[in-house]
């Protein structure tokens, strides 16, 4: 069946070309020091290492699963570094780069994928909510949280804003669109950050939308913008502006970070079944690390020693991750009943006690050599 697709090329906010050239954008002036730029490079490199390490750990059976962010480092680090401590981020399940920026320990991320917890960290300690697996649900949580900020009167320069991450596929979910409605009518201080990595598992973007995703926002009454998701500087600048506007009471906005999932959907996935390797090659040329590396080098903002130091730090990080991952303790059987409810619950208490008895019966039985 013929599908009309809009062929008009949308504007892509870009500050750093794939070739590593910087070009100013009138709407997004970037106030950033050389040190901060090197910091961004370090983030990108370390996050990539974290990811590579986790993929390897999964291959070795240390993790049940891993969702690689390979290729999306700039979108995540750029937006993650745009956040202030007071801000709150609601991730999906692939935001390891944002987690990094929010100070979540890598081992706490790994814990989830290892299967020792369904959570892993204290969201309030990091301004970074738990990973959310059911697609789209967190868009509403973020919007509600932003409505809470409004009610706290916590807007303005020292106030807070919310950012919520989701994928291109997630834009099809009812919940995501309801979040657009709630955010718009409440003028909630929330930034919708869509990482359009072109794929939802095996489905290309065309199965979710026939027009660029950033345009969705307009129909709900707030601005949408498309940014080069492989350009960490553009992601930083655009997200900063959106968060600023949110804090200043200008309400929600949608950022579509145009990027590419260079790896498999997760370690369980086999992308050779549904996409061409040529596509991957094309995107390799747009690698988010490469272009910042080139830019820093060309402009004398970082030297070989810097890159070597980052490389070395990445090595240490990798080692730490491997060690810490293997050391993650398995939960105890009775943890199943842990914190199901916040207040006392006689039924759960009883089930826990019964199960404890049951487990104890084995210890006895084992001693007697019984079954």
């Amino acid at each position, binding site marked *: 069946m013929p599908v009309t697709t809009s062929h008009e090329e949308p504007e892509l906010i870009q500050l750093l070309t794939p070739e590593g050239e910087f070009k100013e954008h009138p709407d997004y002036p970037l106030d950033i020091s050389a040190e901060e730029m090197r910091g961004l490079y370090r983030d990108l490199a370390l996050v990539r290492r974290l990811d590579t390490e986790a993929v390897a750990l999964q291959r070795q059976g240390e993790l049940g699963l891993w969702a690689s962010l390979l290729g999306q480092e700039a979108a995540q680090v750029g937006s993650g570094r745009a956040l202030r401590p007071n801000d709150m981020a609601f991730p999906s399940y692939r935001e390891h780069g944002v987690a990094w920026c929010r100070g979540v320990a890598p081992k706490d991320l790994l814990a989830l994928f290892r299967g020792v*917890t*369904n*959570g892993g960290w*204290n*969201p*309030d300690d990091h301004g970074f*909510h*738990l990973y*959310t697996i*059911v697609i789209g*649900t967190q*868009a*509403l*949580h*973020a*919007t*509600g*949280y*932003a*409505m*809470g*900020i*409004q*009610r*706290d009167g916590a807007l303005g320069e020292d106030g807070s804003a919310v950012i919520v991450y989701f994928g291109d596929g997630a834009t099809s979910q*009812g*919940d995501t669109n*309801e*979040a657009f*409605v*709630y955010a718009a*009518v409440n003028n909630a201080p929330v930034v919708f950050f869509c990482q359009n990595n072109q794929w939802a598992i095996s489905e290309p973007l065309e199965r979710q939308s026939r027009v660029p995703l950033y345009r969705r926002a307009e129909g709900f009454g707030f601005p949408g913008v498309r940014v080069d998701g492989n350009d960490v500087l553009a992601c930083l600048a655009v997200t900063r502006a959106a968060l600023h506007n949110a804090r200043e009471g200008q309400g929600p906005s949608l950022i579509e970070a145009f990027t590419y999932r260079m790896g498999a959907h997760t370690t369980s996935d086999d992308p050779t079944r549904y996409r061409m390797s040529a596509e991957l090659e094309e995107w390799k040329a747009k690698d988010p690390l490469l272009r910042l590396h080139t830019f820093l080098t060309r402009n004398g903002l970082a030297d070989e020693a810097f890159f070597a130091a980052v490389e070395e730090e990445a090595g240490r990080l990798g080692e730490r991750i491997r060690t810490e991952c293997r050391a993650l303790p398995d939960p105890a059987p009775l943890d199943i009943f*842990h*914190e*199901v*409810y*916040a*207040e006392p*619950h*006689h*039924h*759960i208490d009883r089930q826990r006690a019964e199960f404890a008895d049951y487990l104890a019966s084995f210890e006895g039985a084992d001693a007697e050599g019984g079954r």
Partner: protein
Amino acid sequence: MTTKLTIGKAINEGLRRAMEDDPKVLVMGEDVGRLGGVFRVTDGLHKDFGADRVIDTPLAESGIIGTAIGLALRGYRPVCEIQFDGFFFPATNQTFTQLAKMHQRSGGRLRLPVVLRIPYGGGIGAVEHHSESPEAYFAHTAGLRVVTVANPEDAYWMVQQAIACDDPVVFFEPKRRYWDKADVDTTRSLTSAAPMGAARIARPGQDVTLVAYGPMVKTALQAAEADTDHSVEVIDLRSLSPIDYDTVCSSVRRTGRLVVAHEAPVSSGLGAEIAARVTEECFYHLEAPVVRVGGFDTPYPPSRLEEHYLPDLDRVLDGVDRTFAF
């Protein structure tokens, strides 16, 4: 000091008191603001607490629960009204996969003190989707507490207890009993009220235990009154998850017989759980199998048939008779 209140008004007063006591309490839902809800349960709150605390939401139930979760994460205590039982279903995903599980997911770090108020059950002559009794879905979902009320006293106190509870609580309101009136002593303190989790012996008896909840309690009491052959003990369950089996089982151990009545379809309804569990606990005390009286395993019929669908006094008495005829 007592006041005469309907169940609807008692909930309204309970909400008002909770909002006065704690500025973090919010009321949200469709038409809960200026209109005061289609059943007027939030009447006057918008006027007195303003649009920031009494929120007319967009017409999207997933959005109501989803944003309530976010508000709870920010420290608020949202009380969400789902306009009718049949319109809960768009919010199932947020309720079952997020609201119910987030506390556990966070290892106890996050608290989700969200109340879902759901007017439920039939008997008001409504069109489709306005007469459902979906409580079993919730009772099968770990992480939720589920309660319902049968009189103004409980309505007034339990809605406040639900709001004060740090777990998500589904608060079922027996819509056809909204207009039932009784005295409520509103001057007592919340802690002095009967705990939300406890069942109540609504009428003592010796021969058979009749468990009911929500709108069926009144029917059960009428049936007990009408039964001149047996002394029927009526238990108002109040908490549907968890269930206060101590109260139920100690009654059954005395009477040896149990009838459970609810409006929801019998198959896989709450009566099944109660029958299974009580039989486990009271096997040698039971003189007859637990009899379940409930709605049929069909969609709720058009209103001209609902008097036949809903278990009435005769159907409940038939159930009682069956436990004796066994």
